[in-house]
């Protein structure tokens, strides 16, 4: 590159001029196509949800709706039938909100304390504890479903809101503990020693020194947990009980409840509504979400 001869009279000086190279155009073209590829299903769903049934039957799925309507969205939200009840997705939405709002803080607080204790308060067997906890991340959860049903029934929590919160807390624990342990392990241990010399104990160090430093990693954990718990289907189905079925389970019921014809518009609207929360989380959290994925990569 440096051997390229300059036109006469041009002396290199100041910032090097930027050229649009073929490579650069290629990269952008690729990124654009990749983005479109992943956007198309969403676009098709949103367009379809605004079309009437006759238009869907007669037309092309890529065509814009001729008379866009939000009727199906309203129906999906408030009056679509899930089995015998016809209250739409709304009850499921509020159930999911309840489950998420309770499970996320509980699991994160416990994992944070775990990670803190495992990084700084090494005790006899703490490495083993951590290894066992990590091992938990690789146990197929199907294996644990029945034992947990049994256990929760024994204490009368099977099919209740606390029951599903406990289940989410347990299953989030390995990955979240790993996340926090690695974060705390990356902090200089001298900080912890300084606080010990200053006379602070386990909780004082946690609340006064560590917690204020943990905001970024906590945001990552919240994103990980909100999306994970919101998207959960199987735990909700098994453990939440009829009264607390999350939105994903309700969505499944709507899509599978057939009263004569399949109403694609309603199904599409319901699907987009259910996916809206993780989508909004992705869009709002941007870079934090990428870090979350990087951190969650070990999840496999």
């Amino acid at each position: 590159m440096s051997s390229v001869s300059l036109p006469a009279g041009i002396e290199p000086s100041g910032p090097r001029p930027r050229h649009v190279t073929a490579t650069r155009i290629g990269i952008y073209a690729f990124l654009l196509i990749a983005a479109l590829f992943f956007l198309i299903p969403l676009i098709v769903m949103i367009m379809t949800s605004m079309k009437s049934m006759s238009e869907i039957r007669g037309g092309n799925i890529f065509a814009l709706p001729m008379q866009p309507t939000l009727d199906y969205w309203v129906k999906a939200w408030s009056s679509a039938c899930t089995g015998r009840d016809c209250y739409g997705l709304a009850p499921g939405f509020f159930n999911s909100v309840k489950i998420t709002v309770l499970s996320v803080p509980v699991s994160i607080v416990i994992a944070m304390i775990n990670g803190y204790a495992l990084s700084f308060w090494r005790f006899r067997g703490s490495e083993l504890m951590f290894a066992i906890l990590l091992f938990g991340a690789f146990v197929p959860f199907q294996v644990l479903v029945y034992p947990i049903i049994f256990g929760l029934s024994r204490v009368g929590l099977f099919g209740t809101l606390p029951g599903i919160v406990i289940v989410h807390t347990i299953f989030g624990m390995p990955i979240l503990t790993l996340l926090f342990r690695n974060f705390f392990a990356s902090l200089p241990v001298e900080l912890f020693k300084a606080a010990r010399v200053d006379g602070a104990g386990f909780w004082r160090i946690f609340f006064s020194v560590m917690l204020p430093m943990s905001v970024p990693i906590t945001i990552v954990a919240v994103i990980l947990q909100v999306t994970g718990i919101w998207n959960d289907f199987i735990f909700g189905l098994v453990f939440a009980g009829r009264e607390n079925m999350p939105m994903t389970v309700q969505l499944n019921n709507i899509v599978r409840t057939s009263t004569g014809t399949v109403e694609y518009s309603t199904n599409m609207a319901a699907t987009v509504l259910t996916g809206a929360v993780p989508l909004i989380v992705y869009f709002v959290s941007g870079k934090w979400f990428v870090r979350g994925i990087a951190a969650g990569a070990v999840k496999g």
Partner: protein
Amino acid sequence: MSTSVEIKDLSLNYGTVTVLDRLNLEVGKGEFIVLLGPSGCGKSTLLNCIAGLLDISAGQIFISGKNVTWDEPKDRGIGMVFQSYALYPQMTVEKNMSFGLRVAGMPKPEVDARVKRAAEILQLESLLQRKPVELSGGQRQRVAIGRALVRDVDVFLFDEPLSNLDAKLRNDLRVEIKRLHHRLKNTMIYVTHDQIEAMTLADRIAIMKNGVIQQLADPHTIYNKPTNLFVAGFIGSPSMNFIRGDLTGGALNIDGASIPLANYEFKAPMNGAAVLGVRPEHVVVGEEAQKMPFQVESEIEIVEPMGADTIAWTKLGGQSLTFRADAEVRLVPGQKVLIGFDPGRGSVFNGESGERI
């Protein structure tokens, strides 16, 4: 002088690795002790044991006459300053300094008074409301010192406090620490691998190697009467010349020369393999060399002008020899000069054990 810190038969193992083995150390009240040694020799480990941040494997630790072996760090009457400063990043300078006092539940007026006094001593008054990220390295380390200062402790522990600073700041802060010691007269135990810091600050230096204190003495003795080859080679820059030879009849015989040791004060006279240590600044050239008990003609190999003086490399009996000459003396490679020194000012070591004889 009464004893401030006393360490008795202290051992520390990490699993099967023994880092400190039955170490004994007594530090007087108000004394400035420097633990000096190469990286990994166990200096920080020893300091952490004194602070109570590591569980020791055996032995006892007394501070101000009290057995603190099982005490929590906060109950030992110590303050500690770390290499990485270890300031609480989310707290202001003021909150950093007052943290320990607040944890102890001290009434606010007294906390404020102590922080104010420490800030005055360390010239931090104008920075009290800043966060650590808004401070320079030197300022951060002063805050870290202030954090130990406010707690009004008997013993200050420093773990390489200046290692993260650039050369100029390091010199400034070194003087400041010395001034602080003169003013407060606390006991200070100071860990470093920098011999200049050790020589300039210490009342006594403890030279460590592989978890064992090699020599504990004042800087002058350490420099002039090193107890073994390790200490002799570790202290001094450029380092001491070691001339290996055979000790017989009060003279060291080397290739083509015999160095008379008549005026050397032997601790334990012996015959056999020995090493004579000569400081580069004790070797002189030219006319001055003619006055020395030992003189030899030699050829200059390399010259390193340092500004204040010049370091020259030559050979003595086939062994490398460096000396420090006045910057005004013209020396060029290849030049033949007369060099000389007084073997009585040197140190003689047993060639096998490396111990001073």
